[in-house]
């Protein structure tokens, strides 16, 4: 594990150095995405200011939920957002090179790129978080801090697992990019707004099939000290690490299975 992190750092370091070779385009990228994020943030702020309540949620509570989801998502995006381009690697047969090296294939793929420009989105989420906290008076117990500290990385793992499973589709279709995107980007928008706004069937779907609910909703309820408006068991508030572990297992097994279906390309 320590060794894997070491290799990840080496490979990502190489990637960042490569990006810095094109300083101009790198700077423009970071600036561009920062501006987009900033405008996104202004839009969110406007919405928050024009509605005072969303069901039983105050504006700052919604902002808190939005920030948690946004930060974790942006962080996942930062780490493995380049899985979007993975189908291309499959199509042109460049996955061959990953397979002749004595390291896990998933590790190599995850470390094969690093979207530094997406740091701007993490920053945007952090600003929203500061805004939310400024209007909330959370009583920080040890339990709440712990739930938050465990839930955030768990959320990243859950998001990441969904993404990896989506990327596996590429081994069969050789063109799974769009499929994964609809899945995850759709997923975050939902996780950013309170769950009970959506219909029951959708909640079931997400709660059972794509366990995005654990990503932010239940931990946020716990930290905010709110009763679940849906009356679901409170144990759910603490389940995110378990869900993350399960999701990672499913993603890992799916990946292993999928790699055996790699067909390479002629040459």
């Amino acid at each position, binding site marked *: 594990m320590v060794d894997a992190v*070491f*290799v990840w750092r*080496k*490979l990502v370091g*190489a990637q960042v*150095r*490569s990006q810095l*070779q*094109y300083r101009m385009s790198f700077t423009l990228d970071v600036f561009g995405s920062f501006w987009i994020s900033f405008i996104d943030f202004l839009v969110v702020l406007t919405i928050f200011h024009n509605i005072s309540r969303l069901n039983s949620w105050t504006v700052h509570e919604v902002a808190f939920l939005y920030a948690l989801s946004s930060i974790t998502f942006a962080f996942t995006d930062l780490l493995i957002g380049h899985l979007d381009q993975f189908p291309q690697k499959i199509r042109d*047969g*460049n996955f*061959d*090179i990953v*397979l*002749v*090296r*004595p*390291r*896990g294939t998933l590790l190599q793929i995850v470390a094969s790129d690093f979207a530094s420009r997406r740091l701007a989105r993490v920053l945007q989420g952090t600003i929203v978080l500061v805004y939310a906290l400024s209007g909330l008076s959370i009583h920080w117990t040890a339990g709440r801090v712990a739930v938050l500290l465990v839930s955030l990385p768990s959320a990243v793992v859950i998001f990441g697992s969904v993404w990896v499973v989506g990327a596996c589709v590429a081994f069969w279709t050789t063109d799974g990019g769009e499929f994964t995107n609809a899945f995850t980007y759709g997923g975050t928008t939902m996780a950013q707004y309170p769950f009970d706004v959506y219909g029951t069937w959708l909640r079931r779907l997400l709660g059972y099939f794509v366990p995005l609910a654990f990503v932010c909703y239940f931990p946020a309820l716990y930290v905010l000290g709110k009763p679940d408006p849906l009356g679901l068991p409170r144990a759910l508030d603490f389940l995110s690490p378990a869900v993350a572990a399960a999701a990672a297992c499913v993603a890992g097994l799916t990946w292993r299975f999928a790699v*055996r*279906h*790699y*067909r*390479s390309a*002629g*040459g």
Partner: protein
Amino acid sequence: MIEVENLSKRFVVRRGRFRRERHVVDAVKEISFGVERGELLGYLGPNGAGKSTTIKMLTGILVPSGGRVSVGGLDPSRKRIELARRIGAMFGQRVQLWWDLPLLDSFQLLRHIYKVPPGRYRESLARFREVLELDAFIHTPVRQLSLGQRIRGELTAAMLHGPELLFLDEPTIGLDVVAKQRVRDFLVEINRDDGVTVMLTTHDLGDIERLCNRLLVIDHGSLIWDGGIPELKERYGGERVLVVDLEGPSEPLQVDGATVERVEGPRQWLRFRGSASELTARVAAAARIVDLQVQEPDIEEIVRRIYMR
């Protein structure tokens, strides 16, 4: 070192935009062969014969559809990581080096990926720098290297971790004569001095003739030749050509056991099988010979004949 038994690979491809028809391609059909430690083996075949597909199954990139493979005692697709530490692979059409970074950075990254101990790394890098003359461009970003320079870098990358077995898929593709010679010398050296087993595919028959002591020929997925180059010449190139210079222009000679292929002034080309001295005696009985020469068929001619069968 390598054992292959009835190895097959079938690709199912879907063709057409609307009615996606299933289409089966048998890229490799039940081939069997074995390779001993220390061999330098050439793998030859026309385009689309199944060479790359075979190499990919031997290196654990593709999972075979049938048959059995064992490389260094391991099943390549199941023990991929273990095998990867012991073999080196280079694909002439793919770039394994880090495109935007100096060549040296790629070597350092590979050192970590392969967990090469620092001492061993320094030693082998120093050696490759010398043998492949990398010093002039080792600090240049890979994207700025010429093809020949990059291939030398790729070879170093494939060898840095000291593999016992090296797979090369078209290592000399696109190289000029000098660069080709350098690569060939390098391969001979690592094979002779380090005992590295080498298996290479190529379309360059010069590679095969200068390097390989054994040749596999594959066509349409089936193995059609496995053996040495002299035996191949004997089998497919049994016919030789006797070139005789006569005193002056004359009618095509009529001698038993030979047919005149070509006449150019006093010079005639006679295609024959069997003993050259017997034929020479027969020709000498029919006409005065000023000069003569026996032409062996070259490997290119032989391969052309095999492919056209």
